[in-house]
C-alpha cells in the first residue's frame, strides 16, 4: 500500500494525526511531477496545475483501495493546498523578479506567464480567498478544490460532503464575492 493510501485509510479509521501527514507527501509529489514535466516539455509550454494534481492522485493513491469519496476528498484537500502553496510561491517570485528584486534570476522572456493569471492577480486572489475561508470555511474550501485541484462542482461537493445544489450555491456566492473583492471594492464593514 502506498504511503498516501495508508494515510487515507488512517484518516478513515479516525486517526487525528493522519491528515497532517498527507500534505507534505502530496506537496513533494506535486513539486516532483512539475519538475519532471518541465524537464520534458519545451520551456515555453505552460503547465496545467490541475492536471498535475490528478496525475499525483493516480500515482500516489491505490485507486482500487480508495474508492470512497470521503478519503479522496482528504487527498484533494491536501493537493489543493499543496498546489496553492506552489503557485503562490511562484507568483511571489515572479513578482519580485518583475520589480527587479533579483536580476540574476531567470530572464523575464523565459517566464512567459499565462495570460489569464498574472502573479498579482493570483496573490490578490489568494489573499481574498484566505479572507473568504475565514468568513465561510466551506466556500473557501470549495474554491480551493476547484481552483487549485481542478475538481468540478459535483466532485468538490462529494469531497466536502455537500449536496450538489448547496455546493452550487456556495460556488455562486464565492465567485461573486471573490470577484468583487479582487476588483478592489472595500470589504463590507464586518469583513
Amino acid at each position, binding site marked *: 500500500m502506498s504511503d498516501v493510501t495508508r494515510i487515507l485509510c488512517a484518516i478513515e479509521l479516525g486517526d487525528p494525526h493522519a491528515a497532517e501527514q498527507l500534505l507534505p507527501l502530496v506537496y513533494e509529489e506535486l513539486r516532483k511531477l*512539475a519538475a519532471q514535466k*518541465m524537464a520534458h516539455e519545451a520551456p515555453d509550454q505552460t503547465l*496545467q496545475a490541475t492536471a498535475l494534481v490528478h496525475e499525483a492522485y493516480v500515482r500516489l493513491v491505490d485507486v482500487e483501495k480508495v474508492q470512497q469519496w470521503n478519503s479522496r476528498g482528504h487527498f484533494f484537500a491536501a493537493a489543493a493546498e499543496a498546489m496553492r502553496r506552489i503557485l503562490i510561491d511562484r507568483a511571489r517570485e515572479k513578482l519580485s523578479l518583475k520589480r527587479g528584486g533579483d536580476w540574476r534570476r531567470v530572464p523575464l522572456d523565459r517566464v512567459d506567464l499565462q495570460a489569464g493569471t498574472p502573479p498579482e492577480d493570483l496573490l490578490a*486572489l489568494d489573499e481574498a480567498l484566505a479572507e473568504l475561508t475565514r468568513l*465561510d470555511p466551506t466556500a473557501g474550501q470549495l474554491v480551493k478544490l476547484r481552483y487549485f485541484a481542478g475538481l468540478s462542482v459535483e466532485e468538490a461537493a462529494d469531497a466536502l460532503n455537500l449536496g450538489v445544489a448547496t455546493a452550487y450555491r456556495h460556488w455562486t456566492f464565492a465567485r461573486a464575492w471573490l470577484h468583487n473583492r*479582487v476588483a478592489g471594492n472595500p470589504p*463590507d464593514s464586518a469583513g
Partner: protein
Amino acid sequence: MNTDFEKSRQIFLAIVEQPSTQWDALLDEACGKDSELHRQVALLLKAHAEGEGILDRNEALKAPTGIYESLNERPGTVIGPYKLLQQIGEGGMGTVWMAEQTHPVQRKLAVKLIKPGMDSRQVLARFEAERQALALMDHPNIAKVLDAGTIGSEPEALARDSAAPLAHASGSARPYFVMELVKGVPITKYCDEHHLTPKQRLELFIPVCQAVQHAHQKGIIHRDLKPNNVLVAEYDDKPVAKVIDFGVAKATGPRLTDRTMVLLYELLTGTTPFEKKHLQAAAFDEVLRIIREDDPPKPSTRLSTTDELPSIAANRGLEPKKLSGLVRGELDWIVMKSLEKDRNRRYETANGFAAEVQRYLNDEPVQAGPPSATYRLRKFARRNKRALATGAVLFLALLIALGAVAGSVGWMMRDQEARRAKLASQLEVVLEEVEQQLREQNWAEALAAARRAEALVAGGGGDAVLRQQVSAALVDLILVKDLEEIRLNRDVRLKRDGSDTTPADRQADGQYAAAFLEYGVDLNRLSEQEAIRRLQSRPHVTVALAIALDDWTNCRIGKGDVAGARMLGAVARGIDADAWRTQVRAAWAQEDWKALEGLAASPEFLRQPPPTLHLLGMILGDGGKLESGIEVLRKTQARYPGDFWINYHLGVKLRVKGPAYLEQAIGFSRAALALRPQSAGTWTTLGSHLMRQKKPDEAITYFSKAIELDPKYADAHNGLGAAFHSQKMLDDAIACYNKAIEVDPKIIMAYCNVGIALRGQGKLEEAVEWFNNPKYKAAIPGDPKDRSYRLHWLNNRMFLCMTLLSMKDHRQLAMAGRELADTDYQPEKDVYEGAIWVAKCVSLAEKDARLAEGQRKELVQAYAAQAIDILKQAVARGYKNARGLSKEPAFAPLRSREDFQKLVAEVDAKKK
C-alpha cells in the same frame, strides 16, 4: 460566521436565483434601510453578473511557466574550454550536455552540470576530494572523467550574455564534470533491442560489476547505479557497457549492493517503469515472492502474468517458461545474497557479485551450486576485508597527497602553508559530516566519513584537537561496525531437545564480550552501574551500543544464561534514552508479558531497529506468548524483509506453532537461507521442515548441503541419516548417525536412531546391544531428575523393549520393563508402561517351547507377580485410570488374578 457577512450572503443567494430584472426591487425589499448591507449585496450581484471575474479568467487553470527553476544554460553556452551543443540527459543532480572542446584537441564530450541547490559547503568539499579520485579511475567500462571544475563562484564571473560563462543565479559555485562521451543506450534498452539471452545479458553485466569494484578500490561509490547510467555502445561490433556519472549523486541514496541488485533484476526481468524510491522495494518483493514459491502468482507478479511473459521473453530470445525458470533459479540466490543487510561489505561485493554471476554462467544452469559459490565468496571477502578496508584508506591519503603533487611540485613547495590550511578546512567539513551522520544514526556513513577524515589527517591536515576528535570517532564507530558484524555473521545452531545451550550462541556471547573488552569496557566484570557510566561517556554511539546489547541479550538467552541476559538488558536500559526500547527492556525484566504485547502493538514499533524487535519477538515466543511473538516477527519481517535473523526465527517459530503453519515456516526459512546461503544451520533447519512435510528426497539435498558447508555439523549428519532412514536406506542412515556421533558424542537423537535402524534391518541382537551400550546412557544430557533426561531414557528403554519383544526374549524384556519403573524419578505413566512390558512377558513365557513345563509355570507366575507389583507402584504414584487397567490387552493374562482385581477395585474406589 459573521452575522453581516451571513446576512449579505443569504440575501445575495435569494436574489441571484431570480430574474435579474427583479433584482433591484428585491434588493430594496430585503435590505430596507440598511444602506451598507444594500451596498454589499449590490456589489455581489454586480460581480455575479459580470463575466470576467477573477475565477473566470482561469477556467483552464494553468501554472505559470517554470514552477521549476528553468536553468539558463542553453546550446552555445561556454563553460571553460567547452561549448554546450545539446542537452542529452537530465537527472536529479543536474543536466547532461553534449559539448565540444576545441582546444587543445577538437573532440566531443559530455558535460554534466550540477543543479543549483546542490552547492552546500559539504557537497563542494566532497566534490573537491572526489574530483581528483575520479580523474584517476581508469577502467574500460567506466566513462572516463576528463575534467571537473566549478563555475560562477565569483560574482564578477556573472554576465547576462548567454554565451558568457555561466553561473547559478544565486551566485554560488556550481560544480561540473566533463566526461568521455558514450554514444550508447541504457543497458536494459540495449538488451531488449538486441534480444539478448539471459546469459548474454549477464556477460554484459559482469564487466559492470568489475568497473564498480574498480571504483570502490579507489574509494569512489557510484550511489546512483541504474540502467540509465550504464550505457552500452558497440566497439568493433562488440557491445561494451560503460558506467557513467560516477561520484556525483546524493549521499543519501540507497546502498550500492541494493542498486547493483536492482539493476541486475531490471536487466533480467525488464521491469523499469518504477518510481526510483519504489524500485528497490518492488524488486525486493518480487524476488522474495519468487523465492518463497508459496504465494500463488498474483496478477501483479510481473513474471507470472501470462500476457506479459511472451513479450518480455521474446525480447530475451527464450520461451516464456524457460525464462521464468531461469530467473527463478540460481539467480535468486545471487540476488538475495546481494541484498544482505551488510553495509560494511558494500565495498567488496561488486567484484564478488561479478564472480558469482560468472560462476552461474559457467555452471550448468540448473545444477549450479550458488551456496557453495557464495561460501567461497564470503570466505574470500572475509580474508580480504581488512586488507581492502585499509587499502582504501591508504589510497585516499595517497590520492590527496598525489593530487597536490600532480598539480605542480613547485606550487606545492611554495604553498605548503596554503595546502595545510586547505586540508584543515576540508577536515573540518568532513568532521562536520561525521557529526551529522552520527546524529542521524547512519553509522556506516559516519564511519566512512571518519575514515576520510583519517585520510586527511594522514595527509597532514588538522591540529592535535581535530586529530584527537577523529581518532575518538573512529574507535567508537569501529566498535559499532564490529558489533553489527557479529550479528550479521553469528551462526545458527539448532537448539537440541534437552540441551539448553547452543554452541553458536556461546560463541557469539564470547565475541560480543571480546569486542566490548577491546573497547575498554569489560561487561563480564564491571558492575551494571560502572558499565553504564562508561558507555554513557560516548554519547554519539550509545544508541548503537544499546541495540547491539539487545542482540547480545538474545544470544545469552539462547545460551541459557538468563542472569547474564538480564544484566545486559539493564545496561542497555541504562544507556539508551529511547522510551519504547526502555519500556520493552523494563517489561522483560519484570516478565510483564501483557506490557510487552502492548508495546508490540504501539505505532513506535515500526521505527525500531531489527535487533530490538528480534529480541522482543523471541522473548514473547519463549515466554509462552508464541502467537504474539510470531506476530512481532511477522511485522518486523514485513518492515525488514532482508534481515536474516527475523526470517530465520519466524520459520522456526511457525513450525513450533503447528503443522498447519509448516508451509509458511518453509517460506520464511527459504528466505533466510537465500539471505545466508552459507549457513549450515539454516540448511539443516529447512531440511527438518521438509522432513516434517514428508519430503525426504528434498531434505536429503538440504542436509547434504549443510554437511558440505560444515562437515562437523552433527545435526545435519543426523538429519541426513533420518532422511535416508525414511527412504529405507538403512545402511546409509546408520553411517550418517555414526558420523553424527563421531563429530558430537552428545547428540542423543543419533544414538536412538542407530538402534531403531539396526532393529529395522533385523539386526535385533546388535540393536539390543546398542540400546544397552553405556555410551548411550552417558550421552543423555542433563540429570536423571530432569524431564528431558527421563524422556530420552524412556525412549531408549521403549525401543529396547520393542526389540526384545520381537526377539521373544522374555527374560531380558522383564528386566528392561522393571528398569522403566525402577527409578525414583519416573512418573506414574512410565511406571505403568513398565508394567505392560513385564506383563507381556507372561504370554511370551507361556508360549516359550524351550522351557520345561515346571520352569514355564514358575516364570509365568513370577512375571505376573512382578507386573502387578509394578502396577501397584504406579497406582501409589498416582495412576488412576481404572478403565485403562481393565482394557489393556497386555494385562489379559493377569485379569483372572485376585490381586489384579483388587488393584482395579482400589483404583476405581479412588476415582469415586
